[in-house]
Protein backbone atom coordinates (compact mmCIF):
# COMPACT_ATOMS: atom_id res chain seq x y z
CA UNK A 1 0.00 0.00 0.00
CA UNK A 2 1.35 3.41 -0.84
CA UNK A 3 2.01 5.70 2.08
CA UNK A 4 -0.40 8.38 0.96
CA UNK A 5 -3.35 6.06 1.45
CA UNK A 6 -2.69 5.91 5.18
CA UNK A 7 -5.08 8.36 6.88
CA UNK A 8 -2.93 10.54 9.12
CA UNK A 9 -3.15 9.29 12.66
CA UNK A 10 -1.24 9.47 15.90
CA UNK A 11 -3.00 6.42 17.27
CA UNK A 12 -0.28 4.03 18.35
CA UNK A 13 -2.15 0.84 17.49
CA UNK A 14 -2.92 1.97 13.95
CA UNK A 15 0.59 3.33 13.46
CA UNK A 16 2.03 -0.02 14.51
CA UNK A 17 0.06 -2.13 12.06
CA UNK A 18 1.87 -3.82 9.18
CA UNK A 19 1.08 -2.24 5.84
CA UNK A 20 -0.92 -5.15 4.48
CA UNK A 21 -3.30 -5.16 7.42
CA UNK A 22 -3.60 -1.42 7.38
CA UNK A 23 -4.36 -1.51 3.66
CA UNK A 24 -7.40 -3.65 4.33
CA UNK A 25 -8.63 -1.36 7.12
CA UNK A 26 -7.81 2.02 5.58
CA UNK A 27 -10.80 2.31 3.22
CA UNK A 28 -13.11 1.83 6.18
CA UNK A 29 -11.43 4.23 8.62
CA UNK A 30 -13.46 7.39 8.93
CA UNK A 31 -11.90 10.59 10.35
CA UNK A 32 -14.06 12.03 13.11
CA UNK A 33 -13.99 15.13 15.29
CA UNK A 34 -14.46 14.18 18.93
CA UNK A 35 -16.13 16.98 20.87
CA UNK A 36 -15.89 17.58 24.58
CA UNK A 37 -18.46 15.53 26.56
CA UNK A 38 -19.67 13.77 23.38
CA UNK A 39 -20.98 10.31 24.21
CA UNK A 40 -19.59 7.78 21.77
CA UNK A 41 -20.85 4.62 23.47
CA UNK A 42 -24.02 4.72 25.53
CA UNK A 43 -24.38 2.24 28.36
CA UNK A 44 -26.11 -0.95 27.22
CA UNK A 45 -26.36 0.17 23.58
CA UNK A 46 -24.74 -1.94 20.87
CA UNK A 47 -21.28 -0.73 19.87
CA UNK A 48 -21.66 0.54 16.30
CA UNK A 49 -18.04 1.68 15.83
CA UNK A 50 -14.61 1.25 17.31
CA UNK A 51 -12.88 4.60 17.94
CA UNK A 52 -9.11 5.09 17.61
CA UNK A 53 -8.35 8.50 19.16
CA UNK A 54 -5.37 10.65 18.24
CA UNK A 55 -4.94 13.24 20.95
CA UNK A 56 -8.55 13.10 22.06
CA UNK A 57 -9.14 11.28 25.34
CA UNK A 58 -12.08 8.99 26.01
CA UNK A 59 -13.34 8.33 29.52
CA UNK A 60 -15.13 5.12 30.35
CA UNK A 61 -17.49 5.88 33.21
CA UNK A 62 -19.74 3.87 35.46
CA UNK A 63 -23.10 5.54 36.11
CA UNK A 64 -25.14 4.79 39.21
CA UNK A 65 -28.95 4.94 39.38
CA UNK A 66 -28.81 8.28 41.23
CA UNK A 67 -26.73 9.79 38.43
CA UNK A 68 -23.41 9.65 40.29
CA UNK A 69 -20.52 8.82 37.98
CA UNK A 70 -16.96 7.67 38.35
CA UNK A 71 -14.34 7.02 35.70
CA UNK A 72 -13.28 3.39 35.51
CA UNK A 73 -11.02 3.61 32.48
CA UNK A 74 -9.40 6.01 30.06
CA UNK A 75 -8.52 5.54 26.39
CA UNK A 76 -6.12 7.74 24.48
CA UNK A 77 -3.89 7.40 21.47
CA UNK A 78 -2.46 4.18 22.90
CA UNK A 79 -5.76 2.40 22.47
CA UNK A 80 -9.21 1.88 21.06
CA UNK A 81 -12.69 2.30 22.47
CA UNK A 82 -15.35 -0.40 22.17
CA UNK A 83 -13.18 -3.31 23.27
CA UNK A 84 -16.08 -5.26 24.80
CA UNK A 85 -17.08 -6.05 21.20
CA UNK A 86 -13.70 -7.72 20.69
CA UNK A 87 -14.57 -10.07 23.53
CA UNK A 88 -17.93 -11.11 22.15
CA UNK A 89 -20.24 -8.61 23.85
CA UNK A 90 -21.92 -6.01 21.68
CA UNK A 91 -22.63 -3.65 24.59
CA UNK A 92 -21.26 -2.54 27.95
CA UNK A 93 -22.85 -1.33 31.20
CA UNK A 94 -20.44 1.61 31.06
CA UNK A 95 -20.60 4.80 29.04
CA UNK A 96 -17.75 6.24 26.98
CA UNK A 97 -17.50 9.97 26.48
CA UNK A 98 -14.91 12.45 25.29
CA UNK A 99 -12.86 13.85 28.15
CA UNK A 100 -10.48 15.98 26.07
CA UNK A 101 -11.62 16.94 22.57
CA UNK A 102 -9.61 16.18 19.47
CA UNK A 103 -9.80 13.88 16.50
CA UNK A 104 -9.64 10.21 15.72
CA UNK A 105 -10.59 7.49 13.29
CA UNK A 106 -13.52 5.18 13.63
CA UNK A 107 -14.49 1.97 11.92
CA UNK A 108 -17.71 0.01 11.88
CA UNK A 109 -17.68 -2.77 14.43
CA UNK A 110 -18.24 -5.68 12.06
CA UNK A 111 -15.45 -4.52 9.74
CA UNK A 112 -12.80 -4.47 12.44
CA UNK A 113 -14.11 -7.75 13.84
CA UNK A 114 -13.67 -9.39 10.44
CA UNK A 115 -10.00 -8.41 10.46
CA UNK A 116 -9.64 -9.28 14.15
CA UNK A 117 -11.02 -12.76 13.54
CA UNK A 118 -8.36 -13.44 10.93
CA UNK A 119 -5.95 -13.70 13.86
CA UNK A 120 -2.34 -12.66 13.53
CA UNK A 121 -0.77 -9.33 14.37
CA UNK A 122 -3.92 -7.21 14.74
CA UNK A 123 -5.62 -9.73 17.00
CA UNK A 124 -2.50 -10.13 19.08
CA UNK A 125 -2.02 -6.39 19.38
CA UNK A 126 -5.62 -5.72 20.36
CA UNK A 127 -5.70 -8.52 22.91
CA UNK A 128 -2.52 -7.20 24.52
CA UNK A 129 -4.17 -3.78 24.65
CA UNK A 130 -7.31 -5.23 26.25
CA UNK A 131 -5.14 -6.93 28.84
CA UNK A 132 -3.52 -3.61 29.75
CA UNK A 133 -6.94 -1.95 29.85
CA UNK A 134 -8.12 -4.59 32.34
CA UNK A 135 -5.04 -3.82 34.43
CA UNK A 136 -5.92 -0.13 34.30
CA UNK A 137 -9.55 -0.72 35.31
CA UNK A 138 -8.65 -2.97 38.24
CA UNK A 139 -5.91 -0.61 39.45
CA UNK A 140 -8.34 2.31 39.23
CA UNK A 141 -10.87 0.43 41.36
CA UNK A 142 -8.22 -0.20 44.01
CA UNK A 143 -6.97 3.38 43.81
CA UNK A 144 -10.46 4.84 44.25
CA UNK A 145 -10.90 2.77 47.39
CA UNK A 146 -7.47 3.11 49.00
CA UNK A 147 -5.88 6.43 48.06
CA UNK A 148 -6.55 10.04 48.95
CA UNK A 149 -8.27 12.34 46.53
CA UNK A 150 -5.01 14.31 46.16
CA UNK A 151 -3.13 11.17 45.10
CA UNK A 152 -5.97 10.14 42.79
CA UNK A 153 -6.06 13.58 41.20
CA UNK A 154 -2.29 13.45 40.65
CA UNK A 155 -2.57 10.00 39.06
CA UNK A 156 -5.47 11.11 36.88
CA UNK A 157 -3.71 14.28 35.71
CA UNK A 158 -0.62 12.28 34.76
CA UNK A 159 -2.69 9.81 32.76
CA UNK A 160 -4.42 12.70 31.00
CA UNK A 161 -1.11 14.50 30.41
CA UNK A 162 0.33 11.36 28.79
CA UNK A 163 -2.46 11.37 26.24
CA UNK A 164 -2.55 15.03 25.20
CA UNK A 165 -0.43 17.62 23.44
CA UNK A 166 1.23 20.18 25.69
CA UNK A 167 0.92 20.98 29.36
CA UNK A 168 -2.47 22.72 29.40
CA UNK A 169 -5.42 20.49 30.13
CA UNK A 170 -8.91 21.92 29.49
CA UNK A 171 -10.62 20.45 32.53
CA UNK A 172 -13.27 21.87 34.83
CA UNK A 173 -13.69 20.92 38.48
CA UNK A 174 -17.11 19.56 37.56
CA UNK A 175 -15.64 17.12 35.07
CA UNK A 176 -12.80 16.08 37.36
CA UNK A 177 -15.24 15.53 40.23
CA UNK A 178 -17.32 13.25 38.02
CA UNK A 179 -14.25 11.34 36.87
CA UNK A 180 -12.86 10.85 40.37
CA UNK A 181 -16.28 10.18 41.89
CA UNK A 182 -15.81 12.85 44.51
CA UNK A 183 -17.45 16.14 45.47
CA UNK A 184 -16.64 19.43 43.83
CA UNK A 185 -15.19 20.75 47.07
CA UNK A 186 -13.01 17.65 47.25
CA UNK A 187 -11.47 18.51 43.89
CA UNK A 188 -10.99 22.10 45.01
CA UNK A 189 -9.14 20.93 48.11
CA UNK A 190 -7.00 18.46 46.16
CA UNK A 191 -6.16 21.03 43.48
CA UNK A 192 -5.04 23.42 46.20
CA UNK A 193 -2.70 20.78 47.57
CA UNK A 194 -1.12 20.15 44.16
CA UNK A 195 -0.92 23.87 43.42
CA UNK A 196 0.65 24.63 46.80
CA UNK A 197 3.31 22.02 46.06
CA UNK A 198 4.01 23.79 42.77
CA UNK A 199 3.00 20.83 40.57
CA UNK A 200 0.09 22.49 38.78
CA UNK A 201 -1.52 25.85 38.15
CA UNK A 202 -5.30 26.14 37.96
CA UNK A 203 -7.25 28.87 36.26
CA UNK A 204 -10.85 28.76 35.20
CA UNK A 205 -11.38 25.56 33.24
CA UNK A 206 -7.67 24.93 32.70
CA UNK A 207 -5.04 22.99 34.59
CA UNK A 208 -1.40 23.50 33.62
CA UNK A 209 1.19 20.91 34.56
CA UNK A 210 4.26 22.86 35.67
CA UNK A 211 6.26 20.17 37.49
CA UNK A 212 5.64 16.80 35.91
CA UNK A 213 8.40 15.04 37.87
CA UNK A 214 7.06 16.41 41.12
CA UNK A 215 3.58 15.23 40.26
CA UNK A 216 4.89 11.74 39.50
CA UNK A 217 6.64 11.67 42.84
CA UNK A 218 3.47 12.74 44.62
CA UNK A 219 1.05 10.38 42.84
CA UNK A 220 0.27 6.97 44.24
CA UNK A 221 1.92 3.84 42.86
CA UNK A 222 -1.11 3.19 40.62
CA UNK A 223 0.11 5.55 37.90
CA UNK A 224 3.40 3.73 37.36
CA UNK A 225 1.82 0.26 37.55
CA UNK A 226 -0.70 1.09 34.84
CA UNK A 227 1.82 2.91 32.64
CA UNK A 228 4.13 -0.08 32.76
CA UNK A 229 1.30 -2.32 31.56
CA UNK A 230 0.52 -0.07 28.60
CA UNK A 231 4.18 0.28 27.70
CA UNK A 232 4.46 -3.49 27.75
CA UNK A 233 1.39 -3.91 25.54
CA UNK A 234 2.71 -1.42 23.01
CA UNK A 235 6.25 -2.72 23.05
CA UNK A 236 7.43 0.48 24.76
CA UNK A 237 6.47 2.61 21.78
CA UNK A 238 5.44 6.15 22.67
Amino acid at each position, binding site marked *: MSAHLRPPTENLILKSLPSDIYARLAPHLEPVALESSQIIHKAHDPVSHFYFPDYAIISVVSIMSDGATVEVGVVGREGVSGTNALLGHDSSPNQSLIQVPGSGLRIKTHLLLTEFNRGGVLQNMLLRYVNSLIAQVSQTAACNRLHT*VEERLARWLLMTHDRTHGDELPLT*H*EFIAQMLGTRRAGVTGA*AIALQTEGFIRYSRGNITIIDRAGLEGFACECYKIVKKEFDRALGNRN
Partner: protein
Amino acid sequence: MREMIEGRENKGRVTILYVEDDDDTRPGIKRLLISHGYRVVIAGNEEEAQERAQDGRIHADLLLIDLGMPPADVLAAGHRIRHAALTDDKTPLVVMAFKYNSEMEGQDVHAGHHDWVTYLENAEQLELLIDRLLREHLTASP
Protein backbone atom coordinates in the same frame (compact mmCIF):
# COMPACT_ATOMS: atom_id res chain seq x y z
CA MET B 1 -11.67 44.80 64.22
CA ARG B 2 -10.46 44.74 60.63
CA GLU B 3 -6.91 44.05 61.84
CA MET B 4 -8.09 40.80 63.42
CA ILE B 5 -8.35 39.00 60.13
CA GLU B 6 -5.74 40.64 57.98
CA GLY B 7 -2.50 39.13 59.17
CA ARG B 8 -1.81 35.43 59.36
CA GLU B 9 -0.97 35.72 63.04
CA ASN B 10 -4.09 37.66 63.85
CA LYS B 11 -6.32 35.48 61.72
CA GLY B 12 -5.50 32.67 64.13
CA ARG B 13 -7.94 34.14 66.59
CA VAL B 14 -10.76 33.76 64.13
CA THR B 15 -12.48 30.41 64.40
CA ILE B 16 -14.31 28.58 61.65
CA LEU B 17 -16.58 25.67 62.51
CA TYR B 18 -16.26 23.40 59.47
CA VAL B 19 -18.91 20.70 59.16
CA GLU B 20 -17.95 18.11 56.56
CA ASP B 21 -19.26 14.57 56.15
CA ASP B 22 -17.01 13.61 53.23
CA ASP B 23 -13.66 12.06 54.12
CA ASP B 24 -12.29 12.92 50.65
CA THR B 25 -13.07 16.60 50.93
CA ARG B 26 -12.24 17.34 54.56
CA PRO B 27 -8.40 17.32 54.49
CA GLY B 28 -8.01 19.68 51.55
CA ILE B 29 -10.45 22.33 52.74
CA LYS B 30 -9.11 22.11 56.29
CA ARG B 31 -5.58 22.62 54.98
CA LEU B 32 -6.73 25.60 52.92
CA LEU B 33 -8.34 27.29 55.92
CA ILE B 34 -5.39 26.65 58.21
CA SER B 35 -2.96 27.92 55.59
CA HIS B 36 -4.85 31.19 55.68
CA GLY B 37 -4.38 31.44 59.40
CA TYR B 38 -7.81 30.46 60.66
CA ARG B 39 -8.43 28.28 63.67
CA VAL B 40 -10.53 25.39 62.38
CA VAL B 41 -12.86 23.20 64.40
CA ILE B 42 -14.05 20.14 62.50
CA ALA B 43 -17.30 18.24 62.84
CA GLY B 44 -18.29 15.25 60.73
CA ASN B 45 -22.03 15.89 60.73
CA GLU B 46 -24.76 18.10 62.19
CA GLU B 47 -25.06 16.24 65.47
CA GLU B 48 -21.33 16.39 66.13
CA ALA B 49 -21.32 20.08 65.27
CA GLN B 50 -24.13 20.74 67.72
CA GLU B 51 -22.34 18.80 70.45
CA ARG B 52 -19.14 20.71 69.88
CA ALA B 53 -20.96 24.00 69.78
CA GLN B 54 -23.07 23.30 72.86
CA ASP B 55 -20.21 22.40 75.15
CA GLY B 56 -19.27 26.05 75.03
CA ARG B 57 -15.62 25.50 74.28
CA ILE B 58 -15.76 27.07 70.89
CA HIS B 59 -17.01 30.32 69.61
CA ALA B 60 -17.36 30.16 65.86
CA ASP B 61 -16.95 33.34 63.88
CA LEU B 62 -18.17 31.58 60.74
CA LEU B 63 -19.89 28.29 59.91
CA LEU B 64 -18.74 26.45 56.79
CA ILE B 65 -20.84 23.44 55.89
CA ASP B 66 -20.63 20.73 53.25
CA LEU B 67 -23.14 17.90 53.58
CA GLY B 68 -24.34 15.66 50.77
CA MET B 69 -27.80 17.22 50.64
CA PRO B 70 -29.55 19.96 48.66
CA PRO B 71 -28.52 23.49 49.73
CA ALA B 72 -31.90 24.23 51.39
CA ASP B 73 -31.50 21.24 53.70
CA VAL B 74 -27.90 22.15 54.50
CA LEU B 75 -28.94 25.74 55.25
CA ALA B 76 -31.58 24.41 57.66
CA ALA B 77 -28.93 22.27 59.36
CA GLY B 78 -26.68 25.32 59.52
CA HIS B 79 -29.41 27.33 61.24
CA ARG B 80 -29.82 24.60 63.87
CA ILE B 81 -26.07 24.49 64.46
CA ARG B 82 -25.89 28.26 64.72
CA HIS B 83 -28.76 28.21 67.21
CA ALA B 84 -27.14 25.44 69.27
CA ALA B 85 -23.88 27.34 69.33
CA LEU B 86 -25.65 30.30 70.88
CA THR B 87 -23.63 32.50 68.60
CA ASP B 88 -25.41 35.58 67.46
CA ASP B 89 -27.62 34.94 64.49
CA LYS B 90 -25.46 37.21 62.40
CA THR B 91 -22.64 34.68 62.36
CA PRO B 92 -22.03 34.05 58.66
CA LEU B 93 -23.11 30.67 57.33
CA VAL B 94 -21.50 29.37 54.13
CA VAL B 95 -22.85 26.25 52.46
CA MET B 96 -20.72 24.56 49.81
CA ALA B 97 -23.05 23.15 47.16
CA PHE B 98 -22.03 19.61 46.25
CA LYS B 99 -23.84 19.00 42.96
CA TYR B 100 -24.24 21.61 40.21
CA ASN B 101 -23.56 22.21 36.56
CA SER B 102 -20.84 24.36 35.05
CA GLU B 103 -23.20 27.34 34.57
CA MET B 104 -23.33 27.73 38.34
CA GLU B 105 -19.55 27.51 38.78
CA GLY B 106 -17.98 30.50 40.41
CA GLN B 107 -21.23 31.90 41.87
CA ASP B 108 -21.85 32.84 45.49
CA VAL B 109 -25.60 33.02 46.05
CA HIS B 110 -26.97 35.13 48.90
CA ALA B 111 -29.53 32.88 50.59
CA GLY B 112 -30.61 35.06 53.49
CA HIS B 113 -29.29 37.89 55.64
CA HIS B 114 -26.12 36.10 56.68
CA ASP B 115 -26.38 32.91 54.65
CA TRP B 116 -24.54 32.06 51.47
CA VAL B 117 -24.40 29.11 49.10
CA THR B 118 -21.13 28.89 47.21
CA TYR B 119 -20.80 26.99 43.95
CA LEU B 120 -17.07 26.51 44.02
CA GLU B 121 -15.02 26.98 40.91
CA ASN B 122 -11.67 27.16 42.65
CA ALA B 123 -10.04 27.74 46.00
CA GLU B 124 -9.63 31.47 45.56
CA GLN B 125 -13.40 31.88 45.39
CA LEU B 126 -13.82 30.28 48.82
CA GLU B 127 -10.94 32.27 50.29
CA LEU B 128 -12.36 35.57 49.07
CA LEU B 129 -15.90 34.83 50.24
CA ILE B 130 -14.82 33.77 53.73
CA ASP B 131 -12.46 36.69 54.07
CA ARG B 132 -15.13 39.17 53.00
CA LEU B 133 -17.84 37.74 55.27
CA LEU B 134 -15.52 37.64 58.27
CA ARG B 135 -14.37 41.16 57.60
CA GLU B 136 -17.97 42.39 57.49
CA HIS B 137 -19.05 40.33 60.49
CA LEU B 138 -16.16 41.19 62.75
CA THR B 139 -16.28 44.84 61.81
CA ALA B 140 -19.99 45.00 62.64
CA SER B 141 -19.67 43.06 65.92
CA PRO B 142 -19.47 45.12 69.13
